[in-house]
């Protein structure tokens, strides 16, 4: 595992891992139901250029959950749930799978993995984890983290997370991820040793970070002028400003890139807002539906009691009552299935956050770039002033020279030299920053496109599965009420 270079300005290079194989996706989950969703197509062609040590298919599953007690960092007793992760490799020929690794992890370790991935792959839309606490609950569902239903749904969610990472063309190659699946003890230390927390830009975490990026999207350009040549933008307004900077502003591709990110940010906000609204309403609808079904159960009891005093009607009442009970209890399964649907939507609710993280990283990159450009520009200006002796802008130095006398030509020369050095350095840095920026945009956009297609596929499938659920519910209803009707008509 290689250390990333200390220079935080450069995109940190995570250790390339022997790839897990072409179709890490399509992995079967031992638990079953959620496997449908994970059926991504494999990483695109041409991604696997490194050594292919692992030519076999890999199956990953989170197969069990267990309550544990232990001591936490402060040596206090705590209860938590541990999840069993099993990795199997599938031989090509006969499709048999062999268990290669199995270890236990808790939720906090998943979080650690994800935070690591966020830092080392800022241009990737990193798959989200299932929610930490139960939200959007309707009354029957418990908000308790230890509730077995919640734990079960979380197990499925964690498995899904691993499958998503494993099927991502870039993420799947990460060594830390590989170790997560294979190295039980010491994994935490290994992750921390990467020093990723230091690399993490604390500004990314700032929730209300609005970096005054003067040039956020060149939307002015795009809207009104659509000309890459126009330079009347933001604060970078100086006649002899940095060549480097202006040249890049003229770059059309770059301008569109910036614009796209703002759009993306708006999109992710909308996505988050609409999905959470939908989930809230869904929970309320589920609540009400539950009520309708369950009250019918009371008919069962009363019919049965009533049938005791009826001679002719008795049988009919009794058997009808039974069907009312069946009807009332059928809602439990129906709503449990719907809960899985809600989880699918929730995943994309959290994905919106991941999208925003990429946008924010882009913003920061832009901000740093502009700061560097500004800095360079002002240095150049200073240099020029010193050289020509004209003072165009107010400077403290200028003031002091006026007050306390001019400096000697030697002093001035020295200063100019220093500045020139700094300017050179600055120009180099700016160049490389620009390059990085463009790399970032290119890579991020590639992943975003990939994400979009995945999202469209998944959501469409989810909507279809919702329709299927409704159909099944209707069929059950028809059957129960047809039976009940028969009983009633025999009364």
């Amino acid at each position, binding site marked *: 595992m290689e250390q990333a270079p200390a220079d935080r300005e450069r995109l940190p290079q995570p250790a390339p891992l022997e790839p897990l194989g072409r179709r890490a996706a399509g992995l079967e989950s031992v638990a079953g139901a959620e496997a449908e969703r994970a059926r991504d197509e494999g990483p695109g062609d041409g991604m696997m250029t490194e050594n292919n040590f692992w030519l076999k298919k890999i199956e990953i599953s989170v197969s069990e959950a267990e309550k544990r007690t232990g001591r936490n960092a402060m040596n206090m007793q705590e209860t938590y749930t541990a999840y069993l992760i099993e990795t199997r490799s599938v031989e090509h020929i006969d499709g048999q799978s062999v268990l290669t690794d199995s270890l236990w992890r808790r939720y906090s370790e998943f979080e650690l993995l994800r935070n690591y991935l966020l830092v080392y792959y800022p241009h990737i839309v990193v798959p989200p984890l299932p929610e930490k606490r139960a939200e959007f609950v309707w009354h029957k569902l418990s908000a308790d983290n230890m509730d077995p239903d919640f734990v079960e749904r979380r197990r499925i969610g964690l498995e899904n997370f691993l499958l998503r990472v494993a099927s991502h063309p870039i993420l799947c190659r990460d060594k830390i991820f590989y170790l997560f699946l294979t190295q039980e003890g010491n994994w935490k230390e290994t992750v921390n040793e990467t020093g990723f927390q230091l690399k993490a830009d604390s500004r990314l975490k700032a929730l209300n970070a609005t970096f005054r990026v003067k040039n956020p999207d060149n939307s002015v350009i795009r809207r009104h002028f659509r000309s890459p040549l126009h330079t009347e933008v933001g604060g970078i307004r100086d006649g002899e400003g940095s060549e480097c900077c202006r040249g890049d502003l003229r770059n059309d591709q770059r301008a569109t890139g910036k614009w796209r990110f703002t759009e993306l940010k708006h*999109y992710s906000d*909308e*996505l988050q807002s*609409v*999905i959470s*609204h*939908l989930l809230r*309403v*869904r929970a*309320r*609808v589920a*609540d*009400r*539906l539950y*009520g*309708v079904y369950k*009250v*019918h159960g*009371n*008919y069962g009891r*009363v019919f049965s*009691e*009533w049938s*005791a*005093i009826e001679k*002719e*009607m008795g049988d*009919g009442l009794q058997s*009808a009552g039974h069907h009312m009970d069946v009807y009332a209890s059928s809602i439990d399964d129906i709503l449990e299935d719907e809960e899985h649907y809600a989880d699918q939507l929730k995943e994309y609710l959290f994905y919106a956050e991941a999208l925003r993280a990429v946008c924010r990283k882009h913003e920061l990159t832009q901000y740093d770039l502009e700061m560097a450009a500004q800095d360079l520009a002002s240095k150049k200006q200073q240099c020029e002033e010193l050289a020509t002796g004209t003072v165009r802008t107010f400077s403290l130095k200028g003031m002091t020279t006026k007050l306390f006398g001019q400096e000697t030509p030697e002093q001035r020369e020295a200063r100019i030299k220093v500045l020139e050095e700094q300017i050179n350095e600055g120009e180099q840095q700016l160049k490389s920053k620009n390059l990085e920026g463009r790399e970032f945009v290119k890579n991020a956009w590639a992943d975003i496109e990939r994400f*979009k297609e995945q999202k*469209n596929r998944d*959501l*469409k499938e989810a*909507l*279809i599965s*919702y*329709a*299927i659920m*409704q*159909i099944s519910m*209707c*069929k059950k*209803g*028809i059957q129960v*009420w*047809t039976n*009940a*009707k028969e009983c*009633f*008509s025999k*009364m």
Partner: protein
Amino acid sequence: MGTLGGAGLAAAACGARTLGMEGERRASQARSSGLPAGGAGGESPGGDAPLPGSSGSSALLQAEVLDLDEDEDDLEVFSKDASLMDMNSFSPMMPTSPLSMINQVKFEDEPDLKDLFITVDEPESHVTTIETFITYRIITKTSRGEFDSSEFEVRRRYQDFLWLKEKLEEAHPTLIIPPLPEKFIVKGMVERFNDDFIETRRKALHKFLNRIADHPTLTFNEDFKVFLTAQAWELSSHKKQGPGLFSRMGQTVRAVALSMRGVKSRPEEFMEMNNFIEIFSQKINLIDKISQRIYKEQREYLDEMKEYGPIHILWSASEEDLVDSLKGVASCLDKCCKTTEERMSGLSEALLPVIHEYVLYSEMLMGVMKRRDQIQAELDSKVEALTSKKADTDLLTEEIGKLEDKVECANNALKADWERWKQNMQNDIKSAFTNMAEENIHYYEQCLATWESFLTSQTDLHLEEDSEDKL
């Protein structure tokens, strides 16, 4: 005609025990007790009206047609009659829901059975200096001879209905009088007379009058006739006839005194009946509550569902590739909303009013039991008096004789009416619940069709897209 035949049988049942059918009818006319129109309880102070003349021959006709010879068969036929008579209100003027149309069709098989058609409609608000009240228009169409005309239109208010019910109870203490809708429903009512309340009441009043019209005995009650035909001033003057306040009070006091004594021994069949009534009352009340609750839950479900579809539309605005799917889901949800509304209205028409009427019936039945018990208690007390006091034995014996007849009459009337009532109840409950099941089946079938067509459209698209990719 069915109703008249039935009336004749009722008279037969409670009149002389040994006489044959035809003779019975004539003989019972003369008696103060056992008059079908006048009432089976001999002590009714007023309303002993002469029997309608034309009924005699038709009763004979009925008897011939049905070929009766035994008392028991009378009861069989009696109940057969009842089952032929449709208890769901038939009215030529009422807008009928599809469900009640089914019942109408059944009815029209024997159009000549019914000769009295009543409708209750057009509620109108009246404001006077003292009060505000609602009147309902009542239209009666009839071919009966004892009515002066074939069509009548009057306006009545709830108070008038109450008066009618009380008169019927007085005249026939052990017959099962149809229930009136409640005076007012306190729970959940903001305004005393909101539209829903008025409509529900109107329907119930309509049912009330039609049930009376269908009842073999009650249909010939004189007060009933007056109610249907008299103009407002005629009705008030008619109301003023009959026992004054004091005598009625006296009756109540005596009744209370008797009920305090308790019934020494109720005959077996009435013990059973009482037991049934108690349990039935419990259960029907529960069912009423359950049904109302289901309605309420469905309403709340509908309210939430109404928001569900539009969110998908909102979402589709930011997803270009998912527009079809999202809009499709939204449209399915909206259609399901409409279907839910239909289901609810079906429930409120077919099930809720029927169940509620039987809740009121169960209260009515308890009253009937009480009254029967009172009549028996009267006899019992006189018998006790006879055994204890030696004075006035002759008088007492005569009184006892009369009371024994009265008790027998009351018991027989109740027994007969009880069978009839039970049969009707079974039919009504059966059809109410069958309708409810049908409504639900219809609801699910509609929703199923909606979702299936959405699914087809999506999977077709899938196939289209796939084949496009392959090209």
